[in-house]
């Protein structure tokens, strides 16, 4: 038998996998009584529903034609995710400037269309907006520069 729809097949697998995982992880969630349904009731119902739906999607993939999974844009997918992660991991420790530069540069690396001279100009503007609006305008408690630099005598205003 030939699988006709890559998209449906993968979706079915995804639903079934998540459903099974939800059942296994939630196996010891108490069911409670009919009058006081416990923690485990809805997760179990939903997990079985998800598995059932996944099976139907799978069945459809076997029986009918459907679209294939189009080309995955690995470069933007990876770079954009890394950009968010970089922001998340640096903001507390290194402050706004480092986090913004890391996130923005990684995003720019996500597309071949980036023109670097234009990018640096734009990044400078964004830095000014970001610091001006969020740190000083809205007064969010974020440090602008890494602690080491902010601790230096001349770094005080940037804390």
């Amino acid at each position, binding site marked *: 038998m030939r699988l006709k729809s890559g998209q449906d097949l993968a979706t079915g697998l995804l639903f079934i996998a998540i459903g099974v995982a939800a059942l296994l992880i939630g196996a010891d969630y108490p069911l409670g009584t009919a009058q006081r349904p416990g923690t485990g009731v809805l*997760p179990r119902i939903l997990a079985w529903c*998800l598995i059932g739906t996944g099976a139907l999607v799978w069945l459809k993939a076997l029986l009918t034609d459907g679209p294939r999974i189009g080309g995955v844009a690995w470069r933007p997918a990876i770079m954009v995710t890394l*950009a*968010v992660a970089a*922001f998340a991991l640096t903001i507390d420790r290194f402050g706004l400037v480092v986090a913004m530069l890391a996130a923005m540069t990684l995003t720019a690396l996500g597309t071949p269309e980036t023109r670097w001279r*234009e990018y640096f100009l734009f990044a400078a503007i964004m830095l000014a907006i970001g610091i001006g609006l969020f740190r000083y305008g809205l007064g969010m408690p974020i440090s602008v520069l890494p602690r080491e630099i902010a601790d230096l005598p001349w770094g005080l205003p940037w804390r």
Partner: protein
Amino acid sequence: MEIGTLFANLALGVSVAISPQNILWCLAGAVIGTAVGVLPGLGPVATMALLLPVTYLLPPEGALIMLAGIYYGAQYGGSTTAILVNLPGESSSVVTCLDGHQMARQGRAGPALAIAALGSFFAGCVATLAIAVAAPPLTALAQQFRPEDYFSLMVLGLVFAVVLASGSVLKAIGMVFLGMLLGLVGTDVNTGNTRYTFGIGDLFDGIGFVPVAMGVFGIAEIIANLTSGERRDLMSSRVTGLMPTRDDIRRSVAPVLRGTFLGGLLGILPGGGAVLASFSAYTLEKRISPTPAKFGTGMIEGVAAPESANNAAAQTSFIPMLTLGIPSNAVMAMMIGGMMIHGIVPGPQVMEQRPGLFWGMIVSMWIGNLMLVVLNLPLIGLWVRLLLVPYRLLAIAILFFCCIGVYSLNNSGNEVLIIGAFGLFGYLLMKLGCEPAPLLLGFLLGPMMEVYMRRAMLLSRGDAWVFLTRPLSLAFLLAAALLLLLVVAPTVRRMRETALREAD
């Protein structure tokens, strides 16, 4: 309802909406909404998700007035891009491209834009009035609801969301279940047990609505848009003469009226909204026109009807949210998120407990519509210039605002990680042809349904038949079942597929 009460309510609304601050937030929402409406690749859902953290700093009235402004503002902005660039700035203005852009090519961009704006304004006024009239009786009805009725109504809402999602019905059903499961992550409020937290402290409070929404709508969108090198066929020819001819106006009156009515009706349906409305209105015009073959060649009717319909629907979709506390689409889910940030539990009690907020928001919609007409027509040149910003730069700005927005919620870098994860997941779903909107609705409604389910079971002493013996609940469930059956029936299914394919 008595006319006197209606006027008293509206007067209260005016007094709230007209305060200088609220006028300012209304303006801000309308302008931001127009901007994101003009820009393809940035929709009202992502924008509202972006601004939710900022609204935390505003009073609740200002916050909701601004968020609402973004939604209907986007309906105005979307038509500008559709007419001038032949790109839908907003998914609800897809059909406007067909005739609107043809008009622009014939040098009649001005009248097309003017009719779109005026039609939207008219629809906005009527729909605002419709909300004011329909909300109180519906709220009164909602107060009779028992837990099982709420539960079944939410089931119906989710079924509507499934039926009206474009693409596969099965996948949409799966997305609802998946969303509900994700909504259960965290501490179970009734028993204090934790679910699916993997011992990670940050998950004990559950996954936040904002990071999930921003991930699947904001970040995933960036990934998808960075891939497709878009071309913009900008009608750089000056927009000369906004005034429609007398003939234009004469031909537009009836389509605007029909579009407003149809859009207003479809907007109320759970799961409905601006996209469905604009498409249906266009189809209706084409069907009843004596010259259907001429549609697509620059017929003003093809601009007037869908643009009125999408704005009417954008407004009336507030009705189920305001009266029942049930979001009918992703944008309304966002509005509920905005209310919850301010500690307001959406539902029928809002109108009684916070009449100023309720009526102020409704009146602000009318004011916002007025501002949009006055502002947009002269400023079209400015909006067009916005289209010249290349996406590679826009992407950087959107990504940064997503990150800082989520960070500002709790000053927690870990929550920013969640939007990264959901961004990637959202992109995967896009590749699999799964729509994120039902997921988001399930995510929001899942925990609410669990609460009502438990309450119903407790009150009925463990008798699950209560969902079928109570008439209202039974009616909702029957409607849901009927709806699902209809979709599975082949003829309806084929119609729906052709309808939604063109709307994609």
